[in-house]
């Protein structure tokens, strides 16, 4: 399983309705994007991290590992803010470090909000409920199918890669390229073969077109729903308080 999804299934918040968690994480995300980067984004990042680790009990290691890649992208792009291109050529931008810092702070806060939702809500709980907010059922069904097949295909890819490595398939650059081509084509062939066999199995059972599955009911609990906007209100209040400090 993927680390974020595994954390979501283990989360103590698993029993809370996805809408309530979306309200909580969405409120914080709103703060991260709309409040001034200093102190708004910094305060939002701290509040979100505290909520994720102390309240939602997402393991710190999972949070850090998941945030590494998106923040790495933001960091790679940040040197562009440090320079300016003018008629005289390239020069250091006067407000470059400030702009880079603002974007990085906003990005960190927003990524943590995204991980707070993703690390507490399995996709299997979210997808069937998307129909209620107007997403076409056919689209949701295909997305749910992709989600179900994803782990089998990922596992197949992992097994093929291990087998290739065991046969010195990554010994040289040339062998690595050949192995990658083989891996991609084998995954394609196997995933299509699996889909065809599923199709035959369903046809044998009188498949009429719709793949209805049992959606586990999750009650919308009032105390959690009332508490959901609190972190965002706290972040906004703290940001305003820090801004007014002399």
């Amino acid at each position, binding site marked *: 399983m993927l680390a974020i999804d595994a954390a979501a299934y283990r989360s103590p918040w698993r029993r809370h309705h996805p809408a309530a968690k979306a309200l909580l994480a969405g409120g914080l995300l709103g703060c991260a994007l709309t409040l001034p980067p200093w102190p708004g984004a910094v305060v939002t990042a701290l509040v979100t991290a505290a909520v994720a680790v102390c309240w939602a009990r997402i393991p710190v290691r999972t949070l850090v590992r998941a945030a590494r890649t998106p923040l790495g992208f933001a960091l790679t792009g940040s040197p562009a803010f440090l320079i300016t291109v003018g008629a005289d050529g390239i020069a250091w931008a006067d407000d470059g470090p400030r702009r880079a810092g603002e974007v990085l702070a906003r990005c960190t806060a927003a990524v943590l909000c995204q991980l707070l939702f*993703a690390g507490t809500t399995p996709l299997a709980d979210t997808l069937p409920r998307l129909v209620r907010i107007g997403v076409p059922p056919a689209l949701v069904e295909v997305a749910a199918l992709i989600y179900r097949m994803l782990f089998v295909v990922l596992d197949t890819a992992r097994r093929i890669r291990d087998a290739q490595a065991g046969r010195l398939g990554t010994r040289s650059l040339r062998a*690595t390229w050949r192995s990658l081509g083989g891996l991609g084509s084998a995954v394609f062939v196997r995933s299509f073969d699996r*889909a065809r066999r599923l199709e035959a199995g369903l046809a044998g059972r009188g498949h009429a077109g719709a793949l209805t599955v049992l959606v586990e009911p999750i009650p919308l609990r009032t105390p959690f729903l009332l508490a959901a906007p609190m972190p965002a209100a706290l972040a906004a209040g703290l940001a305003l308080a820090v801004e007014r400090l002399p």
Partner: protein
Amino acid sequence: MHIAEGHLPLSHAVAWSVAAAPFLVHGAVTLNRRLKDSPEDRLLLGASGAFCFVLSALKIPSVTGSSSHPTGTGLGAVLFRPPAMAVLGTVTLLFQALLLAHGGLTTLGANVFSMAIAGPWAGFAAYLSMRRFGLLPAVFAGAFVADLTTYCVTSVQLALAFPDAESGVAGALAKFGGIFAVTQIPLAVSEGLLTVLLVRLLRTSAAADLIRLGVLRPARTEAAA
């Protein structure tokens, strides 16, 4: 080339989502029609989406010394056509955002526009224009152009969001384009080569699927056989 969550200002995130919406609606309508005509295709579409996700998770060696991930948009467009890729790419990007934290939810519209719309359409156009030179050169052109277009559109998106203080959007475009060119041009070449290897193997192991998807013509396989 995923734009991370929170990287774009809210107004830009909304604008790119609005720009991506008509293509996504067109893709969803096409998909809906296809599923009504042949309901059994939904499993193949599920497999295709899962394949796209796995393809974008493969690590490929980059000329700059590091390793990178292919976008998979070129191959996806060649195999499943751009309208289907708009939907499959959107679902893949949503899953990448929620399962891998690659990309974001507010930046989903911008990422969909570059990776699931602009990349596949440009790649598919390159593939079609090169098809008369043979399958493999066309596949290389499709994957290379799709990857490069995705990178160019992402650079434009970032330049529009963060214009240079002195030279405006044009200067910012030169800056972002210059920084990402170091990794993205070698990556586009790498993705083109990987896609050629992959399609060459598919031609021998899954010719029937390629004929069904319209990539190979039946006469060609008969001749090969």
